[in-house]
């Protein structure tokens, strides 16, 4: 697919994912440096650019975290190059301190920050928002409303950024980033920029002077002037569009993917001649002249957006300021309950809102069909709980951790954070995780819990972190714990990659984003250098891991590190090769009898193990089984046999 991204000629039409469109837009804008941290739904932007960097002069980096990614991109901008940094919504929180200061110092080469938000938390532990940061740090905010815009807006964003010498936020959402649509290409420019950081000019010279936020209030005023410059460009922007009657009964104001939902909703209930659709691509600051032009046309205004009422609030503030010119309006949206305040939207939800305002009846599906379909789904479509993949080392790790804590019998617990192992909150991980927040937060919480002995807390404290998370956010918490003599066990689940987001590399591995060889930082050495005792086990070796964990529990003082090292079942390195051929001897299997009660299928629940109700035994599904052999170690009857594959 990357060939397509590079080879597509001007005028050619392609089916592209939103993220690919953004990447193509960056290439058409002549981007030189791109940095990010893996985060769904943003990761494909960096991956696509990384592929392109094999043939274009382009530096692409998976940074250790989003703050550093933003700094790396900013450096390129200071040196006069166009740069982009990419992250999911959480990443903006991580980078926010630098973001604030970067807004003050300004930029040189165009710099575009691309956060991809995840309404409905389809792949997140939150549905937080990045849009507010634009308002907070006073930088322009752009939101593409479809796939063509996802590409075209990027180039426009770079031009804007260079003109006002400030970074620009271009925000996408899952349903654009991961959806695909038609995109017509433009040309790719010649690449001949040289990097040079000019810094010997006057202190306040934006082009030749040092890059700093000082003096603060002066810079702040400068920033606000830049923003006003952006606003005047927004008034004429082709990304703000209106379709509908001259004086609609109802004006819908929307942005981002909601534009597509609203457009479809209007079509579904046939109100094209009653409802106007104002799609905004420039959503902070709102261009007042443009807004006045449309707000004046209708008495009823419906604002359709996900998730928090950012656009709605800003429109209302503007409407209040313009009241004498536009008159009194009736607003519909999140505040009055027309639009849900949590979760993502879709065409049906927008239809419901419009239908209620205009008094229309709409039946999406004949009721009889709907009732019957639901009844059949209850019978015939059992739900699919999330689980670890067959052969996942986490299943084995949490099996042991859970059992050791149960046997220890003091209500010990595990603090977790973000990654595939977040699933250990669920039955697939035996409900072992008892806290789950953000990247590295488990280690920080454990550092805190590990100091509560003086208040009578007797419970063993464990934190689980991933190998990528270790470098992203765990180090400060780990150092804090060792220095402050906190007592807990830090378990590093080292599966050799950033698995949940698609197996991107991190500094613990010997490759970089492009796939070239790179120096790796050895996790065990880092832990020892920080001053912790380190043990290393293979989580598939249940016996050894259990024994080691018991020994670590005996040791009451300080931070003990246990590295559970086993490669992810989906790792490209593993090439889906089975370690063992596994089979079950039905004559030995105890099934539901006292002495087993189907432990492998009822409790361990690896998808490769199937319960045969008729025969009353467990069987292996050879299509699904990954050949890790762990089930053979835990079967109480010894009915599961594993044979090493040559």
């Amino acid at each position, binding site marked *: 697919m990357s060939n397509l991204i590079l080879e597509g000629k001007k005028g050619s039409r392609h089916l592209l994912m939103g993220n690919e469109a953004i990447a193509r837009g960056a290439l058409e804008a002549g981007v030189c440096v791109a940095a990010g941290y893996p985060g769904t739904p943003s990761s494909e932007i960096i991956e696509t650019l990384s592929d392109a960097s094999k043939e274009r002069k382009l530096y692409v980096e998976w940074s250790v975290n989003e703050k550093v990614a933003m700094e790396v991109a900013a450096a390129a901008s200071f040196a006069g190059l166009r740069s982009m940094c990419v992250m999911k919504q959480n990443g903006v929180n991580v980078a926010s301190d630098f973001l604030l200061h970067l807004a003050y110092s300004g930029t040189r080469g165009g710099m575009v920050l691309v956060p991809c938000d995840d309404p409905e938390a389809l792949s997140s532990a939150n549905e937080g928002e990045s849009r507010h940061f634009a308002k907070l740090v006073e930088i322009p905010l752009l939101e593409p409303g479809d796939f063509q815009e996802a590409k075209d807006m990027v180039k426009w964003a770079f031009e804007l950024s260079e003109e006002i010498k400030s970074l620009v936020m271009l925000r996408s959402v899952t349903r654009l980033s991961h959806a695909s649509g038609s995109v017509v290409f433009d040309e790719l420019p010649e690449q001949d920029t040289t990097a040079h950081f000019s810094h010997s000019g006057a202190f306040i010279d934006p082009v030749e002077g040092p890059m700093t936020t000082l003096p603060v209030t002066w810079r702040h005023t400068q920033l606000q002037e830049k923003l006003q410059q952006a606003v005047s460009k927004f008034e004429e922007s082709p990304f703000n569009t209106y379709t509908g009657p001259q004086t609609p009964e109802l004006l819908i104001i929307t942005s981002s993917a909601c534009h597509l939902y609203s457009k479809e909703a209007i079509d579904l209930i046939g109100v094209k001649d009653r409802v106007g659709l104002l799609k905004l691509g420039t959503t902070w600051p709102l261009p007042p002249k443009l807004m006045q032009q449309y707000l004046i046309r209708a008495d009823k205004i419906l604002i359709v957006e996900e998730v928090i009422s950012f656009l709605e609030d800003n429109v209302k503030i503007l409407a209040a300021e313009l009241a004498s010119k536009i008159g009194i309006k009736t607003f519909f949206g999140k505040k009055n309950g027309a639009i849900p305040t949590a979760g993502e939207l879709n065409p049906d939800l927008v239809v419901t809102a419009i239908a209620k305002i205009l008094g229309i009846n709409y039946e999406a599906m004949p009721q009889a069909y709907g009732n019957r379909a639901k009844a059949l789904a209850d019978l015939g479509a059992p739900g699919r709980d999330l689980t670890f993949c067959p052969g996942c080392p986490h299943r084995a790790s949490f099996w042991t951790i*859970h*059992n050791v804590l*149960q*046997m*220890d*019998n003091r209500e010990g617990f595990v603090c977790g954070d973000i990654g595939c192992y977040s699933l250990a909150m669920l039955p697939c991980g*035996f409900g072992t995780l008892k806290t789950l927040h953000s990247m590295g937060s488990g280690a920080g919480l454990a550092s805190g819990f590990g100091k509560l002995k003086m208040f009578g807390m007797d419970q063993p404290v464990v934190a689980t972190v991933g190998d990528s998370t270790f470098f992203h956010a765990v180090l400060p918490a780990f150092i804090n714990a060792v220095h402050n003599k906190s007592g807990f066990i830090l378990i590093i689940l080292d599966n050799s990659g950033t698995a949940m987001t698609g197996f991107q590399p991190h500094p613990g591995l010997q490759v970089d984003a492009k796939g070239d060889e790179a120096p790796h930082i050895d996790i065990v050495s880092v832990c020892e250098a920080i001053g912790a005792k380190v043990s290393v086990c293979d989580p598939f070796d249940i016996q050894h891991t259990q024994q080691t964990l*018991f020994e670590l529990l005996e040791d009451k003082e300080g931070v003990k590190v246990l590295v559970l090292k086993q490669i992810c079942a989906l790792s490209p390195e593993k090439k889906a090769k089975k370690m063992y051929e596994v089979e079950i001897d039905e004559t030995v299997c105890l099934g*539901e009898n*006292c*002495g*087993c*009660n189907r*432990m492998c299928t009822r*409790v361990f629940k690896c998808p490769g193990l199937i319960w045969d109700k008729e025969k009353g035994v467990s069987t292996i599904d050879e299509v699904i089984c990954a050949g890790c052999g762990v089930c053979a170690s*835990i079967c*109480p009857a010894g009915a599961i046999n594993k044979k090493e594959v040559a």
Partner: protein
Amino acid sequence: MQQVFGPKELLEDVFQNDLCIGCGACVELCPYFKNYQGKTAQLFPCDLSQGRCYAYCPKVEVNLDELSNHFWGRPYDGSPLGNYRKVLASRAGKKIKETSYQAGGTVSAIIIYAFKKGLIEVAALTDREGLNPVARLVTSPDEVIKCSTSKFMASPTLSVINTGMREGYTRIGVVGTPCQLTAVAQMRLNPLEKQDFVDPVALAVGLFCNWALDTRQLMSLLSEKLDISAIQSMDIPPPPANMMVLKTDSGKVEIPLSEIKPLIPHTCFICPDMTSEWSDVSVGMFEGRPGWNTLLIRSQKGAELVEKACKDGFLETEEMPQENLNHLSRAAAAKKERALRTLIRRELINTDKRNQRCAVRIPPEVVQKILR
């Protein structure tokens, strides 16, 4: 056979009621119950409506009449020492070469002799690592001495009987406390009525016991006072000593019983059995005669074994003076009475309060007799 319940009821009746003594009867039957450092925990819920774990547990639905009828052919009568043929003083005979046992060494001698005579092929014994009790399935007489000397911690000894049965052993010996042998007795009744059941216990040797101690609390208490990895043996001498005496590599350490008694699990206070009434033979201290044991012979098998062991020089016995026997009887009766009063107070005897389940069932007239 009365109704057998399952692991869910076991959790409700025993674990949540703080009645678990950590005897190990439910451990190693399946992957769900495990014992670590003296504490039994359930790793995962099991939803079977009937389980051996519930059936074996000595703290739920123990029907003493049923046991008595099965083993002695007559109803339970509440007599202080339970059913027995003879009481003797005993000690290890000359053929027992090692001397690192406690008091008279009777238990070690009997087990070693049982091995030598092929009466048992393995024995479920209790070893100790520091203060951590370790269940061992011993396969030869040479290993028996390693498991000698008293341990006062409640130990999951029975777990290795379960392991042994799974491995196919059919002549298993066991040395256990009264609660443990109650569990063994229930095990031998084939509570889940399996077709191909064969009683695997070839010899049950009981120990006298008034109470046991919680392993973890004991570890915690003693590790402050001495190096617990250097303990050679533990003893609680008869009154008026009022001490626990520990022999270590660097000498003797004495701990006042006032510090030890708070570590008794509450579940010990509902136990009416001081002399392991469901054994072939039971062995205890002989107060006032160090180097000797009290030996209660209960079953035919026990009687024959003792006789042969004496003849072959593995055991020595003497008459037990009536006075000592009376003293023993009185102590046992006192424990029975105390236990019954606790059971009544906690509504754990003969009640159907908790969904028709209780800890012990004894015919009411026998209860009255004991309390008089």
